[in-house]
């Protein structure tokens, strides 16, 4: 009996699945791996190589090995450090704003209310739009002559995007508008996972709303909020589209914009490859710090 079962089982399993392991491998896994190798792994390795050369994609001249010269040049360039400083400031403003607005919206939505589904969907619209389109219409909103923002705030012809002090804030504001819904969505998932009976227990224990928020809600939502922060920090570091469209101020030149100019306007392919790797290392390092905090929050 056992022998019969052993012989029949693989066939009946394959029949139940509809596809054999071999077909799944050939149809799905091999094409995916090929695609990843061609479009991700190869460029990653090739750009690492070009980072150590003086290669220029605009010429036919062969690439010469220059060792660490590109990295030395970049790390000793004060303008690059300024780009990093601007980006860091932008990331802090943008992610902080998104967490405050997104979490606040989630708190408002985390209760029984009419049209909750519709309101949630409408609030998520900004993150479904193309960043380039968002940049274009926010440029109109910020316009000093006919922009609606100056009209509502009564600021006359204030130049949001040309003002060196305000331009970065204006660009960050657009990122906050666009990506707060993402934080809201994750926070809402976190908030709705906090058992209602814990709030009842806190109420019985005479905890006020602020005490309950800081001692119950926030610690329990912290892990999922940290995941949102990790995602948004990585994305904010890479911000390009709307920032490039909105402002050409030196005070808004984020590292992605500097990298674009270096690679595709100045055609310093080798140097820009090295720059891209420096950015990658910085992002990975920051993400690692967050992941450490995430694990701590989870352990709590």
């Amino acid at each position, binding site marked *: 009996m056992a022998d019969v079962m052993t012989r029949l089982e693989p066939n009946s399993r394959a029949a139940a699945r509809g596809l054999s392991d071999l077909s799944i491998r050939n149809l799905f896994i091999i094409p995916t791996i090929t695609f990843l190798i061609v479009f991700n792994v190869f460029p990653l390795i090739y750009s690492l190589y070009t980072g150590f050369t003086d290669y220029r994609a605009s010429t036919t001249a062969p690439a010469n090995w220059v060792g660490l010269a590109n990295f030395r040049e970049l790390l000793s360039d004060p303008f690059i450090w300024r780009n990093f400083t601007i980006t860091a400031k932008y990331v802090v403003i943008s992610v902080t704003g998104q967490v405050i607005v997104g979490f606040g919206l989630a708190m408002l939505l985390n209760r029984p209310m009419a049209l909750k589904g519709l309101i949630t969907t409408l609030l998520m619209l900004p993150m479904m739009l193309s960043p380039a389109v968002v940049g274009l219409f926010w440029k109109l909103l910020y316009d000093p002559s006919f922009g609606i923002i100056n009209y509502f705030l009564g600021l006359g012809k204030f130049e949001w995007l040309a003002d060196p002090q305000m331009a970065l804030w204006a660009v960050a504001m657009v990122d906050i508008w666009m990506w707060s819904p993402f934080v809201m969505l994750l926070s809402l998932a976190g908030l709705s996972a906090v*058992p209602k*009976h*814990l709030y*009842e*227990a*806190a*109420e*019985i*224990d*005479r*905890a*006020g709303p602020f*005490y309950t928020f800081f*001692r*119950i809600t926030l*610690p*329990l939502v912290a892990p999922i909020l940290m995941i949102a922060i990790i995602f948004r920090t990585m994305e904010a570091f890479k911000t390009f589209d709307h920032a490039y469209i909105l402002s050409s101020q030196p005070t808004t030149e984020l590292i992605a914009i500097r990298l674009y100019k270096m690679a595709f306007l100045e055609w310093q392919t080798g140097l820009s490859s090295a720059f891209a790797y420096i950015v990658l290392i910085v992002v990975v390092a920051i993400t690692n710090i967050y992941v450490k905090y995430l694990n701590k929050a989870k352990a*709590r």
Partner: protein
Amino acid sequence: MARIELTDIQKHFGAFQVLKNVNLTIEDGEFVVMLGQSGCGKTTTLRAIAGLETVSSGTIRIDGREVQDLKAADRDIAFVFQSFSLYPHMTVYENIAFPLRAVGMNQSEREAAVREVARVLGIERLLNRKPSALSGGDMQRVAIGRALVRRPKALLMDEPIGALDAKLREQMRAEIKRLHIARASTSVYVTHDQIEAMSLADRIVVMHGGLLQQVGTPEEVYNRPANLFVAQFVGSPVMNVADVGVENGGLSFGAGAGVAMPAGLIAHLPKNAVKLGIRPEAVRLSHEPGEGMVETETTNLEPLGSHEIVDVRLGGATLRARAEPGFVRGQGQRLWVGLDAERAHFFDGETGMALRRTA
């Protein structure tokens, strides 16, 4: 400690009325158990006392003060949830200290209070652990500790040991009783387990369909049930209930079977539409014929170790009797059955209300 009074409490969930005119007074220091099936309104009543549920109408007084419109935090009561409701990210110490921190008690007083409660409950060694590292019994001890630490006016418990296994339930039942005796706190306890109710309560409140069916001591509820529901809900195995005819000198069970009864016990009964209620321990079995006994045969046998439950036919009714182990060999055995007349209960066949002799 506190006296709790519920007056004309009504509660609707939409069109459905969950509580119907609930009137109940719980005395200072009393241990009251609310007993009933799922959906009978016992938990809603408890949550209404706690302030976790609003009432549609009626008044709730704690120590004479009307509280039905106050928030739970302003009622100074403690609540033990069935699901324990421990804060999962805090240690046992932080969980117990939570109600004290919430009202800003200073650290030294807080620590003394937490350690005192932990000592009473025997959970001092667990103070640095997280709830996830505790057994079910220890979690419930911590939940009780958190409830007791601030010395509330009343302690409300919603099936606090319902999620534990049978052995642990028995142990925790004894601990809860011990704590109540030691602290003399006014306690209201909700359960569907009549053994818990019988063993813990000063008074039992039996609920059904949003109505109080009977309020009384465990002995009263067991020995003098107010109606058929109470009679059949309290007691294990359940009370035998049979339709009987009342005739001169006894009760008839149909199919020609009858049992003699003293006239004084049945004189007040109507002739028809009467139900007899008799607990299995009041059904007497004998291998020999005796006065007032009828010959019958066993139809089923349930050996339970300490005793056996024997089913016997009596006319058109099947009665369950409690017998010593080994008293009966199996089904189909001939024996004699009689009823302990003093322990027989009679109920109105239509209303289900107890038909009692007027003294």
